[in-house]
């Protein structure tokens, strides 16, 4: 098949600005983007820089943006793309070293910041730790992470907030928070509640969408938000207030009333910043009704919330079991 590759090139070391270069290539139908890029480098333009190793989506080296979204080049079959021209760019949210090679230093720093290793408590057992299978099996998805950086590349919050800890590190954090052997979960959750923590995620699903290993970082972030609230680590954070406000209002009226929601979700001090917006809206006849509209039988919604909430389970932790004197 014939393929047109439009590659974003740059050599910052030589103080070069980024530019696009197009290459026309004839390749076998079964080729992946990585195969094509390697052929390109070997036969057409040896100055092109890229990273790769395993060529079988295991090592996580070949992350790049393909037609605007991060992916592994070796997992991208050209024939699946259904486009005549394939645009190829380095990953986002990381500085470019050259062409498709980015500097992963900020990526690793974020990962180290969450202490990505097991921190058990108590005596180390003579043999292995023994835990119930179902307390561990559901971590299958998160342990599949190959540290390719695709999620970080396309993370919307990171693009405007360099403090944000980011999807890869959060997925890893979840892995330890949920690991029965790890005893640092409270401390971990406190960190999650701080600046750059889980409340700074904009819930955009980019990380879920681009992850080549179905790690679903955002789902883990949402699960940790829930833990923060359930464990009583946070009540004052706007994120926790927002959850409560939403459930209260929908529980009472069956629907959301935005002005009350905002008033309950942010602190008095911050409200002033939003007041302007309210005023602007009022002047355009956009404010929600003073007495919120209520759906018929709204009480049923509250009842549903009460009943589902009573089914919540605590997470299983070995050190707590030990304290409570029960045996595994």
């Amino acid at each position, binding site marked *: 098949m014939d393929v047109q590759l439009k590659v974003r090139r740059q050599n910052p070391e030589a103080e070069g600005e980024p530019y696009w270069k197009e290459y026309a290539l004839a390749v076998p139908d079964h080729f992946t983007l990585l195969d094509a890029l390697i052929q390109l480098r070997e036969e057409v333009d040896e100055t092109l820089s890229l990273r790769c190793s395993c060529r079988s989506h295991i090592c996580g080296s070949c992350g790049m943006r393909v037609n605007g979204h991060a992916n592994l080049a070796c997992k991208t079959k050209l024939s699946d793309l259904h486009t005549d021209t394939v645009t190829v760019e380095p990953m986002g949210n990381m500085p470019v070293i050259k062409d498709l090679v980015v500097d992963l230093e900020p990526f690793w720093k974020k990962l180290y910041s969450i202490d990505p290793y097991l921190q058990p408590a108590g005596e180390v057992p003579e043999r292995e730790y023994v835990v119930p299978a179902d307390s561990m099996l559901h971590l299958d998805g998160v342990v599949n992470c190959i540290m390719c950086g695709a999620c970080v590349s396309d993370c919307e919050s990171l*693009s405007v907030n360099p403090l944000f800890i980011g999807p890869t590190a959060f997925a890893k954090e979840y892995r330890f928070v949920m690991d029965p052997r790890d005893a640092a979960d409270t401390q971990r959750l406190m960190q999650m509640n701080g600046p750059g923590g889980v409340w700074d995620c904009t819930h*955009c699903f980019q990380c879920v969408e681009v992850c080549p290993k179905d790690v679903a970082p955002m789902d883990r972030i949402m699960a940790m938000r829930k833990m923060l609230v359930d464990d009583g680590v946070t009540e004052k954070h706007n994120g926790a207030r927002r959850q409560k406000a939403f459930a209260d209002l929908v529980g009472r009226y069956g629907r959301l009333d935005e002005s009350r929601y905002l008033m309950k979700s942010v602190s008095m001090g911050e409200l002033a910043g939003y007041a302007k917006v309210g005023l602007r*809206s009022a002047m355009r006849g956009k404010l929600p009704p003073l007495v919120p509209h209520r759906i018929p039988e709204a009480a049923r919604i509250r009842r*549903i919330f009460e009943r589902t909430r009573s089914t919540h389970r605590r997470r299983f932790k070995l050190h707590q079991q030990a304290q409570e004197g029960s045996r595994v």
Partner: protein
Amino acid sequence: MTTYAFYPGCVAKGGAPELYQSMVAVGEKLGFSLSELTGAACTGAGVISERDPLAGDVVNTRTFAMAEQLGHPIMTICSTCTGVMAQVASRVNHDADYRAEVNQYLSDEGLEYRGTTEVKHLLWALVEDYGLDRLKDLVVRPLSGVRLAPFYGCYIVRPSKAVDPLTAGREGYLEQVIATLGADPVEEYRGKDKCCGFPLLETNRKSSLALTGKRLDEARDVSADALVTPCPLCHLNLDGQQPDTPTASTQDSMPILHLPQAIGLAIGIAPERLGLARHIIDTKGLIRKLAVAG
């Protein structure tokens, strides 16, 4: 003619009343038969399920069951509602055991969901059920000469497994509709499927406004005249918060149209009936430009 169980969502009836207003006007003209689900609750916008995933699934399944009783597919006019419902549907429609668990919470209302309700955004209904040819026949004032960039909203495009499970063919719908209305759909607009920052509004307003501003700047970079969105929450940020975005004071303002408003203008509905005066960012300049071009 397909009848829809119409689910307008809270924002269309609250903070963005011009969306509801324009949808009703456009629906009449297109001949849509809309039977509003007045007893349905809020989808929870992802916040309810953040607190309690099961509660989110139950409340939305309740809505599906109501539509199933009516025998109609659900039609939404909000990307967020659509996405939340599509995600719930992906869990309850094909897993009978889980559906039974969820149904337990609905039985005291006499409701039981059998897993057959289809959820469609107006955008999908237009392209897949109504047909762009029929829409084209109704265009009396083509929006020619203006550049209307598409702004999808996260939840109508991601996760694609939930919102576009079969075909992955829904990618270009908004561009297709805009082109059918006679406008230039600004294919090169990179912000179209990115985040407007709305979910960060209460937890990190600075980042929220930075994201909103970024999307607007990307639209300015490709000389768009306005954005068109199928999501009222995006509208709340892109329009309502626009004056507070980082570059607002130095840049031209960017009008934001709800999808039914753009359709309404092209099929000859008066701007007043579409609620175009109810925006924070003035739409008069855009309407003038359209009048000159048309």
